[in-house]
């Protein structure tokens, strides 16, 4: 509870949320540094939430130009008939986000995600990446793990009306209230690479079908050297073939990864805004938990499918 006090301005602005998570958490939030890469709808939702919550800084990375498609899922960039102003997606989002909360330092980091080295990530407490290849997920996760300080690592992806969040908090201790006592809890997270390497047959029964389906699509894009989301209905036969091969290798019944689900993920790769709102909200809450050290963080996957409406936590780890 010690340390500098919140300013009067902060107390007034954050009053309602301090009533949810406390002054101490608010102070930790205001000293935390968050990095995001891949500014599609879901990540933009997340950015809004985390800027409103009052993190210390947010660094945006996405050099893509603003296209009509990007605008479709974006509420940060004012509509402009000409759209000729130039500037990357990150640059244009940056201006709006600054406006949401003048107390948060929002900036842009140019460059390709894969070009950032280990030292680069040391500046951050939280790293969130989206819309990137399997290789990029593994490599950024490993870079975060090489640092002596803990950097919380998240991936988030939304396809059709489905979404997935992955969390790696490495070794994580937090306080938990049980009855009237506060108990110290410890969690050990696997990296993304370790988690997805776990043989499917050794996973708990009734793991979300989305987990398997996302792995098939991810693998397909890797093998075919596609950009994330660069799939269409023509790919479906090959995706189904890959599904069969993987199921055979893992001794998993193919019915665990239904054709219809794969078809949805392969065909409509655009994000569905209500699902982005749900995922961005859950991810925001998780990051706030990780920074403040309060509340059970999810371990280590979260799935949402608007078709059945379930928001499921899956623990994909060996421990």
């Amino acid at each position, binding site marked *: 509870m010690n340390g500098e*006090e919140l300013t009067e301005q902060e*107390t*007034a*602005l954050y*009053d*309602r*949320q*301090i*009533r*949810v*998570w*406390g*002054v*101490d*958490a*608010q102070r930790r939030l205001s000293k935390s540094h968050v990095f995001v890469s891949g500014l599609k*709808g879901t990540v933009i*939702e997340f950015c*809004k939430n985390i800027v*409103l*919550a*009052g993190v210390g800084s947010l660094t945006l990375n996405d050099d893509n130009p603003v296209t009509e498609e990007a605008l479709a899922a*974006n*509420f*940060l960039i*004012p*509509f402009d008939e000409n759209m000729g102003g130039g500037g990357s997606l990150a640059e244009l989002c940056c201006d709006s986000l600054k406006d949401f*909360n003048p107390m948060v330092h929002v900036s842009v980091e140019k460059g390709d995600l894969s070009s950032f080295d280990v030292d680069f990530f040391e500046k951050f407490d939280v790293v969130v990446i989206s819309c990137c290849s399997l290789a990029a997920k593994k490599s950024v996760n490993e870079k975060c793990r090489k640092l002596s300080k803990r950097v919380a690592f998240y991936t988030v992806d939304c396809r059709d*009306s489905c979404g997935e969040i992955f969390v790696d908090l490495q070794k994580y201790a937090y306080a938990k*209230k049980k009855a009237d006592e506060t108990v110290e809890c410890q969690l050990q997270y696997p990296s993304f690479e370790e988690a997805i390497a776990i043989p499917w047959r050794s996973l708990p029964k*009734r793991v979300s*079908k989305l987990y398997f389906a996302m792995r098939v699509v991810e693998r397909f894009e890797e093998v075919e050297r596609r950009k994330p989301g660069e799939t269409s209905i023509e790919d479906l036969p090959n995706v189904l073939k890959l599904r069969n091969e993987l199921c055979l290798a893992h001794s998993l019944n193919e019915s665990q990864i*239904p054709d219809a689900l794969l078809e949805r993920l392969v065909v*409509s*790769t*655009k994000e569905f*805004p*209500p*699902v*982005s*709102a*749900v995922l961005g*909200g*859950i991810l*925001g*809450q998780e990051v*706030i938990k990780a920074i403040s050290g*309060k*509340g*059970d963080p*999810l371990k280590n996957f*979260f799935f949402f499918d*608007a*078709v*059945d*409406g*379930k928001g*499921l*936590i*899956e623990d994909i780890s060996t421990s």
Partner: protein
Amino acid sequence: MASVQQLSAIKDAKVLMVGAGGIGCELLKTLALSGFQDIHIIDMDTIEVSNLNRQFLFRQSHVGQSKAKVARDAVLRFRPKINIKSYHANVKDSNFNVDFFKQFSVVLNGLDNLDARRHVNRLCLAADVPLVESGTTGFLGQVTVHIKGKTECYECQPKPAPKTYPVCTITSTPSKFVHCIVWAKDLLFAKLFGDKNQDNDLNVRSNDTATSSEHSEDIFEPRKDEDIQQYANRIYDHVFGHNIQTALSNEETWKNRNKPRPIYVKDVLSDEPIQQNGNVDKLLANDNLSSLSAMAYLGLKNPQDIWSLKENSRVFFAALKLFFSKRQKEIGNLTFDKDDPLAVEFVTAAANIRAASFNIPLHSLFEAKGIAGNIVHAVATTNAIIAGLIVIEAIKVLQNDAKNCRMTYCLQHPSRKMLLMPVEPFEPNKSCYVCSETPLLLEVNTNRAKLRDLVEKVVTSKLGMSLPLIAHGSGLLYEVGDDLGKDEVANYEANLEKVLSELPYAITGGTIITVEDLQQELVCNINIKHREEFDEEKEPDGMVLHGWTPAAPAAENNKEPTDNNGASTSSTSKPASADVMEADDDELSIVEPGVETLPAGGKKRKLSDVPNSEAPIDEKRAKKIPEENNVIVMLDDGNDDDITAS
């Protein structure tokens, strides 16, 4: 991304949003991104600083402006081609009638109070427009779908009643901090600064015994020969010293309770000069009334600190003096307002001194403000999630896909791996007086109760009607409206004062009366049963209404973990969304509209399992929703702070 069918349903829809606050801002954004083209939005509120942490369409420069209008303008900046119509108005205004509601394909609620929710529910039923209802508190939230004839209506299930405290708990035997807050706010603050003619249960006589004569003075009247300080000392000694002393003399009360200790000024502030004219003079030079603060005057800075008894006493005196020296014009008309810093300081200090007397832990100004000001815990993330779920349900409704609609809980702790838990909607409650035609039964002494009692105790308070009409057969007994003639008004006024059996169309045992709200298009039949006697304690209304489900007492949400230092969410300070208000003569109440409980036992809602989605849920497990999730969620708003009728 949405399917072709979904997109066409979205494009053709005309949507009404009620509420442009916490949920509303998120909802409007998500609707616009999802492709909705025609959105109408009603909100009577204006923007406040404490909204800005989550109502992201608003900026500091918008404070004081209409939420509906600013939200509209903000969304049009990134979606200029869609139609958004904003109404800075109360949804209960008569121009938002059944015909108004009929033009919409679906109504989406992001409201913050029960009264408006009931009103919208009735209009949706009357207009036969589906309603998607929502609420959030902290990390908890829920979305429900109400389709006439297919699912329950908003009022099919009892709603949590105001949390009430017997007057004697508040006036004599407080055991929780919230009791001290109610006392400080509703009794002491009201007595000192509010309307002198209001009933007040505070002991105002200095010699309060059976012998006290009617002529003994009211201690709260300032005397001619005393200055503010002397007056303040006298009040302090009376309420914290004398009254406690008097209460102690009643041995019976303290048999099974810890005795309180009287606190007098001399015990607490004996070692310092009480007169601080120098500082008062400095304050008198300050003309900005809204920034008057006892804390500033005393050099107290952190609202999270818990003050000592001595500090509380100094705040008490400073606040009282500031009221009487700088804001004397308002005295007699003040009501507690959470945005009035001096009022919050005074109530905090008074509640804490009383708490000290009763050996109840003291609380910080921040916590006390939350309890007294009925402040809803709110974060952006939950509102965003709930808004997303509202849109998902709204699209199903627009596609006439009622069988796939779900009510969804957003949980803080996963239940059966789920953070977002869909359950099948309930069927309509066949005995719901709002959406079914089941008559109500009223037991009443028709020779004693007046029509006024019927109107006040049943029609407006229990049935929630705002423009009622009461008829016996074709004979009109009572009506409210702008279009009535003078004679009619006088006639109805006269009827109000008549006992039921002596009305022009007499109401006696066996009579069936019709009660109707023309605006809500709600009609109820009430069977009257005559009954001579009522138990004053248990049936204080002198009448009993059957078939109307009284609200269950609000659950104390103490299972929710307290996850912070500054903001305890324990049961005492939990009345998160609690307005302390007077319910009737006998009870002081705290409204806790937040918490809605899952019905117990056989009525437990079925977890949804859509075919083709996943293996059927293990039945044994399905029945066992963990205990902590039995107290699920709330209907609060994420919208705003006060439980005010709107």
